[in-house]
């Protein structure tokens, strides 16, 4: 669908754990085909320190009810304001932005890896992949048990594997330490979104195993639609905007030392 600036109504705001919130936004107009991996850019009201919009991955889409969800982690002034948005309030959103993940094929076995708030786009991707007929597996990493959110939601679309840094849930360690990435399981594709070091580690693993791998980058951006040229990443074809050429890139496009 075309990009637009819209006032969307918050119809649900659920606190998932100590610092993560799931906001459901309702659009008066019909929402068309939002690709998994696309994002929105949100204007934060009443936060003088937040001059620019804040980008969030689209977490889930409900076309029938004309809503989509975003996950917001309360970190800075802007996100702290946003998580206190009440049901019924309007927020100013530019969407949909970015390219999105390349859809898997029917029958393909795919691994969707999310770390921290990077799990956000994986639910929408997992749902669409399941509808296509892919064999969906999620590998989700977090600091500790309390930081793992929405696990049952992910389980409704595929097999879920978990890691925690402190071993309080699932396998102790980082996502790349999980046996699923070190076993004979053969995946056709890996999709990854999370902190930069995690994505680098996953990319390295995917390269070793010779598996197609896409990562979703999070560079700082001013506009979100390809005009400020601030969010660039180095690719084999020169600098590209994360907001329009990405946020999703195949690891082979990037100039990563992996």
């Amino acid at each position: 669908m075309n990009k637009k600036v819209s006032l969307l109504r918050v119809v649900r705001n659920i606190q998932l754990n100590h610092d993560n919130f799931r906001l459901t936004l309702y659009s008066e107009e019909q929402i068309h085909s939002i690709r998994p991996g696309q994002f929105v850019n949100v204007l934060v009201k009443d936060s003088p320190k937040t001059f620019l919009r804040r980008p969030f991955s689209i977490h889930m889409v409900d076309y029938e009810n004309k809503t989509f969800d975003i996950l917001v982690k309360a970190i800075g002034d802007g996100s702290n304001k946003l998580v206190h948005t009440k049901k019924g309030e309007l927020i100013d959103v530019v969407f949909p932005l970015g390219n999105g993940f390349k859809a898997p094929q029917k029958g393909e076995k795919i691994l969707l890896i999310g770390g921290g708030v990077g799990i956000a786009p994986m639910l929408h991707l997992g749902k669409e992949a399941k509808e296509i007929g892919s064999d969906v597996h999620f590998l989700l990493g977090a600091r500790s048990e309390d930081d793992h959110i929405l696990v049952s939601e992910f389980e409704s679309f595929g097999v879920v594997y978990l890691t925690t840094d402190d071993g309080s849930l699932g396998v102790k360690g980082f996502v790349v330490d999980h046996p699923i990435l070190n076993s004979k399981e053969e995946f056709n594709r890996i999709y990854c979104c999370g902190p930069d070091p995690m994505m680098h580690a996953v990319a390295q693993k995917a390269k070793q195993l010779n598996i197609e791998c896409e990562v979703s980058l999070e560079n700082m951006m001013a506009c979100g639609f390809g005009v400020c040229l601030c969010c660039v990443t180095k690719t084999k074809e020169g600098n590209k905007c994360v907001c329009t050429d990405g946020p999703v890139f195949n690891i082979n496009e990037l100039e990563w030392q992996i």
Partner: protein
Amino acid sequence: MADLSIKIHKLELKNPVMTASGTFGNGVEFNDFIDVNRLGAILLKGTTLNPREGNNYPRMAETSSGMLNAVGLQNKGVEYFCEHIYPSVKDYDTNVIVNVNGSSIDEYIALTERIGELEKVAAIELNISCPNVKEGGMAFGTSIPMAEQVTREVRKVYHKTLIVKLSPNVTDIAEIAKAVEYQGADSVSLVNTFLGMAIDAHKRRPVLSTVTGGLSGPAIKPIALRMVWQVANAVKIPVVGLGGIMNATDAIEFFLAGASAVQIGTANFIDPTITMKIIDGINDYLDKHNFKSISDIIGNLQMC
């Protein structure tokens, strides 16, 4: 409905709202959001003779009421522009203006000559004020002899409207404005960004890869307004005002200070439809205050 049309030298604008170079891409990025044809003029992303990759990431830092950028004129060079970008903008029903950059006088001249061949480019904005390039850029705009020289040489090869974009990083911007006016500039636009800096106290590192960058946004508006007022009082050529304009009231303030037109920059990042709201807002202001034309408020500052 007031008369919003205005002339900048030979350039006929349907209204005094332009976009600031570097904040509007090549216009086409805004097609989803607005009717680009409604604008008085569009200023395309800064172009250079040869392709430039720009500076390393990070290139942006959010600041109090503004932002720093250090993009460094990333663009694919003038030949790419002529072949791929010009065809997609030439049919807009608005004035298309190219922002021209160089690291030497020869580069400025070669680029201007090439752009001069493009029928539908109505004017150039000679950028002598980019703070984010190692060579050229702001160096031309912060010295009177260099500003004079580049304006004089470009004027010799360019016969359409020549707007010179001034740097605010100078002691006396009016002196620079007068110097480029004397050398044949048809208009001056000001201000480009202010040289600034951001530090991450936790990491004890500069935020930008280039350490310094250009500050824009509402944080600079009072200084930009003062400079526009000073320059408008010093030159006879029309002044294009910019610097932190976020809404129609801000734009009106620039007209009152003496600007004949305004450019909207950083505000485009936050609201890609803002230019349309500003055009409508200017009209509403004129109607409300019973002015028939935008010309009626240019420089119409009531001094007490």
